[in-house]
């Protein structure tokens, strides 16, 4: 990632010897303003700074998809995105999927198809699948596999995950008229 990103647009100040910048963004519909170390990853910002622990880390190198979140409508692996790159962004994490006290169809189908076991990869899969269905409400099996093959799961063997996404597509068409 671009460590030399021009940070002049952020307010800079010195805090215990470390240069910090002020970052403002929207996470799950809430406005968040925080001072951050410019080298901090978005993943660590979400977990350590705003204490949203639903987003998981499993490699820290952009290889497993466990840390996937949605930034401005796109799925990104937050471990290799700098927090400062999210200035002004709209972020959705797993904590933002359920609305009005009700699980989303995607979450319900993950439960009912048993698309999770240990659950550690689950937030990442949910976010990758959500971003896919938001951009393409009716993807083919091949398209689903192509996108979700960026996420690793060691427990489920993937078949239940694929089934859950396919069931979600059907139900969203029927129930939400997508």
């Amino acid at each position: 990632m671009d460590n030399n990103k021009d940070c002049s647009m952020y307010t800079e100040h010195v805090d215990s010897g470390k240069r910090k910048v002020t970052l403002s963004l929207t996470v799950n519909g809430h406005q968040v303003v925080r001072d951050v170390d410019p080298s901090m990853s978005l993943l660590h910002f979400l977990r350590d700074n705003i204490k949203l622990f639903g987003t998981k880390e499993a490699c820290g190198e952009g290889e497993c998809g466990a840390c996937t979140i949605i930034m401005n409508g796109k799925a990104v692996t937050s471990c290799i995105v700098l927090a400062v790159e999210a200035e002004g962004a709209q972020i959705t994490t797993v904590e933002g999927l359920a609305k009005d006290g009700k699980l989303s169809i995607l979450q319900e189908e993950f439960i009912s198809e048993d698309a999770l076991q240990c659950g550690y990869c689950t937030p990442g899969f949910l976010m990758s699948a959500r971003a896919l269905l938001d951009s393409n409400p009716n993807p083919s099996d091949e398209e689903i596999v192509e996108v979700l093959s960026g996420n690793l799961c060691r427990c489920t063997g993937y078949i239940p995950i694929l089934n859950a996404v396919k069931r979600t597509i059907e139900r969203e068409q029927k129930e939400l008229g997508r």
Partner: protein
Amino acid sequence: MAKAEYKSKYKRVGQRYDRKDAREKVTGQAVYTYDLELPGMLYARCLLSPYARAKIVSIDTSKAKALPGVRAILTGEDSDILVGLYMQDKRVLSRGVTRYQGDVVAAVAAEDEETAERAISLIDVVYEPLEPVHDVDEALEGKILVHEDINELKHYVGVFFPQKDSNIASWNKSKKGDLEKAFAESDLVVENDFSLPAVAHVPMETHVSIVQADPFSNKIKIWSSAQSPFAIRQIMADSFGVSESDVEVHIPYVGGGFGGKAGIHLEPLATLLSKAAGGLPVKVRATREQEFNQLPTRAGMRGRIKTAANKDGKITAMQAVYDWDSGAYADYGVNVGKTAVYSGIGPYSIENACIDSKTIYTNKVFSTAYRGFGHLETHWSIERQIDILSQKLGIDPYEFRMMNLLEPGDKTMSGEVITESSGNPKECLTAVVKEIGWTGRKTEEERQREWKTGKVRGKGFAMLQKAPAMPANTATSVVMQMNGDGHVKMMIGAVDMGQGAITALSQIAAQELDMPIEDIEISAQIDTRSNPYDWNTVASKLTFLGGNAVVKASHELLHKMKVIAGQVLRTDPENLLHANGEIYHPHNPNRRLSYKDIALGYMYPDGSGIGGPLIASGSVVADGLTNLHPETGQGNPAAVWTFGAHAVEIEVDVETGSVTVLKVASAFDVGQVINEKLIYGQICGGVLQGLGSALLEGYKFNKDEKLMNPSFTDNKIPTMKDMPVEIVPIYIENPQHNGPLGARGVGEHPMISVPSAIGNAVYDALGINFHVLPLSPEAIVLGIQSGKKSILCTDVDCLPGRL
């Protein structure tokens, strides 16, 4: 994704309930050790040995100590603590020498991870590199000893057999019949080597532990991503010289284990660091790279199998020599070696047999339990050997297996008698062979014809068996308490790391108590202070042993309820029945009480009470098991066998060498399905892990035994693209007379024999016998190019194609 419709004869057991932990896991509420923060918590980093074997000449930590924010630095000079599950052979911090390139040389606890990381980079160590022990052959020569103190190492006596002045951590043996006579008198004797590399478990949550060691007492508090809280408690107590009750172990949600978290790993180091930092909690977490190169793996293995058979297809003798490359430490590795001596001829009835299984130290990443331990490996050897034997005899491989599989009255390797209630391997094989439409092996002409299209299909199958590998006196327990609302709070000591244990056990409780599963309150989180004892969460033992404990506790709870209800309803408790959360009198339906009415004791209209809060327990110890005889391996090691079979259809691209798995049919004699959704999940997940071992995975070491592929980029595991097109699960239900509602465990089994079935299918497709895993595209192409019919080695530099 076709699935056979399954119908259960029970109201709650066998039904497709959602897993109890699912809601927390899809909403991001599930808290894993990785997520935990404690007040004042410090973060640790480790300095690992850069050499497979080296002398530590000097360590200078002064620069690191001076770094602000550093709260503790430890080296081997600060602690002499030895740990180990069955052999106390591992120093928490290396002292004097390092034994693999993941040995911890120094560790730092600091206020944040970055500071800890910087401090590590400031530690100066002078090493004198030593020649490592590279492989099992070199190890067996014994010129260099990985553990010079092997003769003094404390170990589990009578079960494991370290050999004097050698690199053999344990040599387990079994034999029966007259091997030499059988070899001399049989029509055909075939001898082959098979091998497979070390493979990583790859839990998505890496190992992570937090420990707070109270400086004012012996108390040690542990939070860990671990499978076996009570084993950690016991080993910590042994190693640190405190009482078991001084150690409290908390297990939050665990992000995958597969055996890799079955023993004790980062907990002792975190304990030492916490002590050194004045009792502040210290979190030690493995990076993904450390997960690969510091934490343990599945051992690499070589099996040498010699088998004799008669022309009519009867196997008369089998000799197996298994050499396990356990790396630097024994950990679970010795137990893996031990299972091979009672399960290492597969589910066959063979009168004359002999097995030698050696768990061997080398200077590689050490090994531990991995799903179905010892079995994927031994079955790779056995099931390929059986297939090769059938080729030589010119007998169909299905018929050949059917002639030799165990049936009631036959004896296993260790002499246990198979009965009607042991499960039926033949039924499993027949079911999967039928499912893939097996009609016999391809002829050479058929292969040639298909070859021209660039893609060749093949079918293959393999048997599998496994019994829980556990000490003869393995025990578990369950406590049930009734809440005021009539719900049952159930506590177990085993960990649900995704296998679905809490849901399955709740179903058994709900079935026995005849109440809604939603009203069984159970948590995946374990705290050794309050949860009852369980030996280890391993070995697919929980459904069986834990299930039996749940049945016992349920019956005790029902009995207690009926005693109180009998007083209230003025009848002998024996006259009462239970259904739908109520105790009632069958002849007078008005005489009934709901569980809720007696949950905390019954209250009469005048306010007086009887009974009191309902509480029950169930304790179970494995029944009738014995240690094996050290020389003959005879005894009763298996509480319950689960038999199964896989059949696969594959397609090999003869240009690229890639193998596509089109269909997998998997049958297991589970006795009784507890939850069809969960079991299907175990099958899909296990099959894909097996497919990883078959086609992609394996550690690669350089000549200095440094791991070359400690990352997801180079150590690939299957992704959604590797998923078989179709997995067909088949559940066979011959009840186990002493299992809970007849059930047997099946958590590990789906992984076993997937490589063997694929290897057999590759033979069907190409007419080439591969003896080495993984069957990577490179290996297949080089195998084809070599023009040979047996591929014994697929290391790039020893492949025939490259010679």
